Each structure stands twice: as C-alpha cells, then as structure tokens.
C-alpha cells in the first residue's frame, strides 16, 4: 500500500485564506488542487509536507475561462476537462483541446487543474508547453493581495521549481489574443495517456498571407519547458511553406537537449522534435487560414 507520510490537512475557504495559511505555515505546507501529481509523489515519499492546504473549494473563485478583447484569462483551478470542453478556447486556441485530448485520461482530467499542472513544473508536462507556445502570463498572488505577473520563462525556474514563493499562489493564466492566430499541439507517447516521449505546440499569427509571428514550445526534450526564439525569428515575415516548416523543424532538433531514457533515445527524440514542429506548424497555419 502506498500511503503518504503523516501530515495535517487544512482547507482554504478563499484565496486570501489560502495565502494566510501559507504565510503561517511557510515551506512546510503545500497547496493541493487535483492532487494527481502531488499525491503520487507523496506516496513515493519523493515529496513530504507537514501540511496540505486543500484549495478545491476555491473552484468558484478560480475556475473559469473568460474571453476579453486583448486576452483570454483562465483561472488556475480550471480543470482539464473544462479546458477541453471550453468553447472560448476551441475558438481562440484549439491547441488546448489538442493537448487535453492526450493528457492522461478522462477520469484524471476530471480532477487535474491548469494551475496544478504548471506549478508541478515537470519538463514533460503538456500544458506548460502549451502556455509557453502561447506566450502566457502567470498571475501570482501573495500576502496582502499583492499580485505580480510573470512570463512562462520566468515562471518555470527549472524542473519542479517555479517562481511561486512559499507564501504565494498562482491564480490566473493570461493568454494574449492577436488577430490571425492558428495553433496546434501534437504528442508522441508510448501508450494512451502517458507522458510525452516528445510533444510540440505551435502558434502562428498571419497577416495577408505572411507570418507576423510564430512560436513553438516543446516538452520532454530537456530540463525546462522549451520555447525556441530562433524559430520565431526564422519564421517572422515569411510566407508559410513546407520548406519553412522543414527549416523550423531543423532548428527545433538543434535547439533541444533530450536525454536517452526508457522512452527513447536522444536521437529519436530530436527526430520527433523536428517532425512534430513541422506537423504542428502546418496545422497551425491551416487553422489560421480557415
């Protein structure tokens, strides 16, 4: 039987209450949302905390997808299934549904949350790659209601490490909306619902047939969720074409840093990084045009 080490359970009744609990309990406490990353780690005693603060009751406050004129705002407690079924995201950023269809399974998706996924900061995690692709901004709230907004690059400090301090909570993800956008996600996995061998997200913004901007985010190819500025630079101002996707794929393969493990060799993962970059860019352009 796998059972976590003993801890005390607290339940937050509001975001501010959660922060006040974190202020009091500090690094000995951890927030628990869906729990589908944290509890397995605690069962294996890879993570041990004196206190767990259950924030699931805050879903009313932090579970939403809202479309604004300049950005889409998603509450950190929005569950995978809500992201998958969101009409707002289906229209603005179909990359989310692409990714959600291949994250775990429908029952797990009933529990897991966007904020939990990002805060887990697993380099193989899909939504981190999605948010990197979309140039997301993360809203972090701390004591006294003070909020700061950081980019995904700033948010994701390293494997299992984020910019969220001991007395802070990730409350919202903001996705900038620009015209002419298309986006897509693709993942190669060993079996349905597994972690990625490699996955890639792509977003393009077209104007008059030319690429105004493009972003590619990769997962599972290095210690960090990887956004690739060199691809953006290579694509800006160009007309979409197969040879351009080829070029972007080659940059992706060169830019990443995969390791050989039970999921595949480093060479195979580089091959996937190139191929999935090509596929998702192609798809993103098709969607931007439709």
């Amino acid at each position, binding site marked *: 039987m796998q059972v976590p080490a003993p801890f005390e*359970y607290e*339940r937050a009744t509001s975001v501010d209450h959660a922060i006040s609990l974190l202020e009091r309990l500090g690094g000995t406490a951890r927030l*628990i949302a869906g*729990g589908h990353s944290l509890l397995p780690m605690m*069962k294996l005693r890879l993570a041990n905390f004196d206190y767990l603060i259950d924030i699931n009751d805050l879903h009313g406050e932090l579970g939403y997808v809202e479309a604004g004129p300049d950005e889409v705002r998603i509450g950190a407690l929005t569950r995978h299934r809500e992201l998958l079924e969101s009409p707002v995201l289906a229209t603005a950023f179909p990359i989310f549904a692409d990714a959600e269809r291949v994250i775990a*399974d*429908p029952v797990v998706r009933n529990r897991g949350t966007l904020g939990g996924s990002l805060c887990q900061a697993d380099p193989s995690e899909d939504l981190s790659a999605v948010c990197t692709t979309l140039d997301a901004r993360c809203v972090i709230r701390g004591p006294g209601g003070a909020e700061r907004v950081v980019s995904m690059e700033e948010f994701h400090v390293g494997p299992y490490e984020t910019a969220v301090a001991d007395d802070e909570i990730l409350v919202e993800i903001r996705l900038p909306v620009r015209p002419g956008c298309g986006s897509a996600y693709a993942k190669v996995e060993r079996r349905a619902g597994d972690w990625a061998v490699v996955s890639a997200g792509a977003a393009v913004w077209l104007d008059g047939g030319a690429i105004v901007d493009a972003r590619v985010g990769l997962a599972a190819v290095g210690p960090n969720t990887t956004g690739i500025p060199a691809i953006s630079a290579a694509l800006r101002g160009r007309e979409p074409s197969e040879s351009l996707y080829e070029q972007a794929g080659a940059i992706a393969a060169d830019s990443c840093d995969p390791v050989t493990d039970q999921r595949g060799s480093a060479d195979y993962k580089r091959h996937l990084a190139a191929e999935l970059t090509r596929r998702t860019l192609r798809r993103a352009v098709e969607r931007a045009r439709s």
Partner: protein
Amino acid sequence: MQVTMTVNDVEVTREIEARLLLVHFLRDVLGLTGTHWGCDTSNCGTCVVWLDGEPVKSCTVLAAMAGGHQVRTVEGLAKGAELDPIQQGFMQCHGLQCGFCTPGMMMTARALLDRNPDPSETEIREAISGQICRCTGYATIVRSVRWAAVAEAQAAAQVTETTESSEAGEIDNAGQPAEAVA
C-alpha cells in the same frame, strides 16, 4: 481529524488520519469493498467512484478532500433490488470476466450515459480509456454499455408511448436489443 461526507446518500462521520486515501476510507473504514483497490497510481481505474457526480480515481483523492461532498460507489448504483441498466448490461453481455475492473468500469459508464445517452463505440472507448481490464475484455465491456444505452432509450420510449404495441422488444445476449415489436 474528523470527516463527514455523504456516501450513497447516507451521511457518515468518522475519525481518520489526514493521509487516508478515499479508496481505503470506503473499503476499510466503511466496509464498502465494492470499490476495488488496484494500481495505487491512478492508472488502472478500478477504484473509480463519483465525487459530486464526477468519476474520480479514489486512490488519488484524500478522504479528507471528500469531506462535505457527495460520494457514490458501485454499491449505490442499484435502486434497491433493481439493478441499474449498466449492471444489467454487464450481466447480459458478459461485461466481466474476473470482475476486478468492473466497479470502476460501471461507475464511469454510468456517468457517461448520464451525459451522453447514446454514445458511439468510440466515445465509450474514450470514456473508459483510463481504466484497465486485466482480462482484456474490452469488446464485451463496450457492448455492455451500448446494451444499457439502448435499453434505457427503449425504456424511455416505452414511457412516452401510450399504446400496448410500444412494448420494448427482447434484448438478446449479443448485446443489441431486438427491434421493438410494432
């Protein structure tokens, strides 16, 4: 700590350790051993129960997290002596062999039909994709869920029809209810 939740419409209060998982609370504290305990890693899905009407893997939910919420287990599927159509479907279509995955499969299937009364085979396979049948009896599980969907549709049609001729037809063991007798 003390936890109070509603399990199969009955409110229960127990003194527990905070680290107790919902699956063990149901099985070991309440004695509801219909919910099975399998992989312990949220992969196999035999521990699926409902939390506020949504299927969840109870090996990865703390009992404390269910406090104040509604839990439904496989024991809460039947209405008295009357089996749920999902349970009837599993009987009719050989939906279980060893029976280990069955409680989780049935809870997920029931939730699926509640949201989508007429799921395709693909939709059924997607819904149970987080659950493993160690007998590999997926074909008959899918057939069982289809059986229940058709049976429920026929029962609903029967309720709305007023003439005797609308009685639902026989349902055969191959899983597809026969055409209603006109």
